[in-house]
């Protein structure tokens, strides 16, 4: 019997000595859906992906992937869980000493014993899915930002993972590349029958393809819902974020003493 939710986060708390990033968070990611995690910079969105992937351990609570608690797995267990995941890192993280072809072939060569002819077909298929089949001979250092990210995406789906995670996939891209990635996220998710989790702060893009959205602020889930529900939300934080307002629950001014005091009184600089 397959679980309805492929990833479940229950009462998760994580942080460093001086501050807690997440306090008692609960999130679920249903199979086959595209879920977005949004929030301001530095609120711990990427850390959630790392917690799911088992790269860091929570202080309390747990993350369950396919009904297995991630941080309680041994080396072999984590290995099997990670084989079901594909992750697209913020700037691609392609291996600089390998060509485009070898980068995409890497997970296949490492985890399967398929003959080279089959690997060649698989790699070209994956590259075709992201529209870069013609670029397979290039070195990864010769690619533009957008192209590199697409190759990294091809690499992430090389083994047909059940979970595809995206870490800020739109950061620093031109409008065309953004549209391409946007389209790919939805298409690949449905074509592979996978579950996608996207960490981003691009409102327009996220609202266009996500089935469900979580908002993180101050270490808790400030709001959640479908894009339709959230765009109508009256919550001040959601409103400020969605409409891109300069000032609101997230203040414009960094904590400082009175302005008048700073200007008029001699202060030690």
């Amino acid at each position, binding site marked *: 019997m397959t679980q309805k939710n492929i990833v479940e986060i229950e009462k998760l708390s994580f942080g460093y000595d001086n501050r807690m990033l997440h306090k008692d968070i609960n999130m679920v990611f249903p199979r086959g859906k595209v879920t977005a995690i949004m929030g301001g910079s530095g609120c711990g969105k990427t850390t959630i992906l790392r917690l799911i*992937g088992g*790269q860091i351990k929570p202080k309390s609570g747990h993350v369950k992937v396919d009904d297995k608690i991630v941080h309680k797995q041994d080396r072999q267990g*984590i*290995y*099997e869980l*990670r*084989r079901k*995941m594909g*992750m697209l*890192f*913020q*700037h691609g*993280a*392609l*291996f*600089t000493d390998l060509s485009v072809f070898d980068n995409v072939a*890497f*997970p296949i060569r*490492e*985890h399967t014993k398929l003959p080279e002819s089959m690997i060649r077909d698989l790699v070209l298929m994956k590259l075709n899915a992201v529209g870069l089949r013609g670029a397979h001979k290039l070195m990864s250092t010769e690619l533009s930002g957008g192209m590199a990210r697409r190759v*990294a995406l091809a690499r992430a789906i090389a083994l047909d993972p059940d979970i595809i995670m995206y870490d800020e996939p739109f950061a620093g891209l031109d409008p065309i590349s953004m549209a391409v990635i946007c389209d790919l996220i939805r298409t690949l998710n449905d074509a592979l029958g996978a579950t996608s989790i996207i960490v981003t702060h691009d409102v327009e893009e996220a609202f266009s393809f996500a089935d469900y959205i979580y908002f993180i602020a101050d270490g808790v889930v400030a709001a959640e819902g479908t894009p339709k529900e959230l765009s109508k939300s009256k919550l001040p934080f959601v409103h400020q974020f969605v409409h891109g307002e300069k000032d609101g629950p997230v203040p414009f001014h960094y904590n400082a003493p009175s302005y008048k005091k700073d200007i008029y009184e001699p202060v030690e600089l």
Partner: protein
Amino acid sequence: MNPIFKTLSSLGNQVTSRIWRLGSATRLFLLILIYSGESFRRIHLTIREIYFTGVMSLIIIIVSAFFVGMVLGLQGYYTLQKYGSSESIGVLVALSLLRELGPVVTALLFAGRAGTAITAEIGLMKATEQLSAMEMMAVSPIARIIGPRFWAGVISMPILASIFSMVGVMGGYLVAVPIIGVDHGAFWSQMNVNVDFRFDVINGLIKSFVFGVACTIIALYEGFDAPPTAEGVSRATTRTVVTSSLTVLGLDFILTSFMIAH
């Protein structure tokens, strides 16, 4: 009182942080050993790294060895001549190289050339999240990236040190016999009699092996531990050279006293 407290606390801080780093580096070393089985299954990666650390260092090693040998010949001759022992020049050159200069100078050059390259490469891979990506693909970066570089360094170092000693002796020969005029036969026969295979050649090899382990681990650790910024990586490469050099010289003393006492 304040500045005194400040210096004392910063001194204490430095000592504790260094000990902590030593512990971390040892942990990395143990991890490399644990994963060495996987590293050796991908033997071609190690061969590739031997090329980049060993073969690429050949030029600097050979040229340096030649000059060092020639200087030894020159300096040695003028000193020995005062005691009428100029025929022992061969012994002087050979023993200096085999016991000390070969392993130590090779290690210092290795740290500067190959060590910094390793640190920069690993640091950069960490900064661009390549190591993280590999982890998420369920491939151990220790087995695939760090391990091969370690074994390559450990294999390359004794080879480079032997080449250094041999080329140095030839450099010394070049200065002593054709140029200064020491007798060809005396040069080699005196050397032959006074250089012991087990004590001098083997001990030199042991030293270069130990230095290889030390320098490579330091280079790998500094790269692995570097903060993922441009400044962090560049400072890490400097630390590699400084720490490697001091460690090599310190280990040299410890090994030499151990070998002489034995």
